[in-house]
């Protein structure tokens, strides 16, 4: 090896390499200067008492996190995606994919396509399908099944609006799912465009004959009708709380009590109502998909998706290590929040992207584009317009599936049905 290194002539492609590095440097320089400019504007305005701007979220954590947050992660992720779409020479495909499978523990016996030559590149192999029958559903009809292959990182009951009590992974449900009910301006992402309906519809709750308007009705828990804003936003104070720069701060009893005060449902905090009646509560589960796992995801139960919120956030790695060190990671990363209902009430499904797997695909939502330059710029533009109007930007683009089925007011999914997947880059 030493003689080879010493004797062989090294050829640098200095021009393309130089251009590449220069381009990344320019992108990073533009982002830092834009951030500094916003910061100055923000301080200036506050002193003059103008409408409050959306505070920039600061990523707390050790130097690795600081380093990561300074990198242009989305640009890198898109480059990674482009790199993996490069076609692999025909005869290198089988050894290449076998090496990948050996490193990441992929079981090739389960792959639907026996001939690996069919996959033109790694991106196609990554999004492989499995043979029918290799993932039987749990026979218990009341079971909620895992949406994908992976590892259960966290699960539990939601207490007081927090998803997790373990250090470093505490964030509020609002920060994860978004805070507001849809506004009439949302676009419709239903399957048949001509049925799309861009407005929020009123709907009857037949079970007890009570007529409840849509944006006031979220669930019937213990005989009380809750609205989504009531349960998840709780008024401006809570909103301010969820905008806190350091998401890892657990809400103090006082702040949560303030939430209670804001609720139209009476003086007690919302979560007290839930726990006191001891009949329904909110639960959560976090499933982590490793690089070698099957990356299509399925429906864990029979439910109806009513709307989706696309947060075009960042693309930090979601490795278990970073989940422990970067507080509120899931509220920072790009994610698609699918909101709907199942037999026991509210149900939400949140695929969260990561640096190497930045694209989230939803089979029944042709409008959705994740990890793309257009959605990022659209998100920035929306934030600026909201800022000009003196409003707070909700942080997501919303679409409704109400047009998918006039009866169900949403897109129905069956247990085990494929919903979409994660793609490289």
């Amino acid at each position, binding site marked *: 090896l030493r003689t080879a290194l010493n004797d062989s002539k090294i050829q640098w492609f200095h021009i393309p390499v130089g251009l590449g590095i220069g381009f990344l440097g320019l992108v990073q320089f533009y982002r830092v200067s834009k951030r500094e400019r916003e910061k100055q504007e923000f301080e200036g305005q506050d002193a003059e008492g103008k409408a409050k701007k959306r505070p920039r979220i600061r990523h707390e954590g050790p130097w690795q996190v600081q380093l990561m947050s300074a990198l242009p992660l989305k640009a890198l992720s898109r480059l990674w995606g482009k790199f993996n779409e490069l076609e692999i020479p025909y005869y290198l495909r089988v050894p290449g994919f076998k090496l990948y499978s050996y490193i990441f523990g992929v079981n090739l016996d389960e792959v639907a396509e026996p001939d690996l030559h069919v996959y033109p590149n790694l991106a196609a192999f990554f999004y492989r399908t499995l043979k029918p029958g290799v993932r039987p559903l749990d026979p218990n009809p009341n079971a909620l099944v895992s949406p994908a*292959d992976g590892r259960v990182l966290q699960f539990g009951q939601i207490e007081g609006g927090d998803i997790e009590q373990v250090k470093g992974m505490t964030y509020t449900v609002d920060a994860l799912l978004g805070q507001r009910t849809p506004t009439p301006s949302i676009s419709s992402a239903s399957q048949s465009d001509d049925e799309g309906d861009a407005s929020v519809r009123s709907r009857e709750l037949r079970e007890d004959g009570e007529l409840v308007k849509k944006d006031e009705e979220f669930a019937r828990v213990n005989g009380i009708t809750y609205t989504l804003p009531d349960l998840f936003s709780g008024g401006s104070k809570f909103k301010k709380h969820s905008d806190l720069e350091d998401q890892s701060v657990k809400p103090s009893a006082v702040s949560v009590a303030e939430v209670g005060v804001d609720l139209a449902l009476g003086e007690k905090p919302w979560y007290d109502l839930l726990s006191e009646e001891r009949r329904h509560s909110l639960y959560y589960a*976090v499933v*982590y998909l490793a690089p070698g796992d099957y990356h299509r995801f399925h429906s864990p139960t029979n439910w109806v998706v009513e709307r989706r919120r696309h947060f075009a956030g960042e693309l930090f790695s979601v490795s278990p290590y970073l989940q422990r060190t970067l507080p509120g990671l899931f509220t920072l990363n790009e994610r698609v929040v699918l909101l709907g209902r199942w037999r026991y009430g509210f*149900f*939400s499904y949140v695929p969260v992207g990561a640096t190497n797997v930045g694209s989230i695909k939803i089979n029944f939502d042709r409008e959705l584009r994740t990890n793309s330059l257009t959605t990022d710029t659209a998100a920035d533009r929306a934030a600026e317009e909201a800022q000009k109007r003196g409003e707070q930007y909700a942080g997501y683009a919303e679409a409704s599936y109400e047009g998918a089925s006039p009866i169900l007011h949403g897109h129905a999914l069956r247990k085990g049905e494929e919903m979409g997947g994660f793609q490289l880059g």
Partner: protein
Amino acid sequence: STIVLVFEAPIGEADPQTGAHKGWTWAVEKGQRVKMGQALGYV
């Protein structure tokens, strides 16, 4: 990549008369590897 599920379900508790557990029950352990279709829990 990661998938987060947040959902509402009947609170898991022991039935005072029969002592049987009813409501939501987890069927996994923390850190457990799961396959698609495997039960995470049941009511």
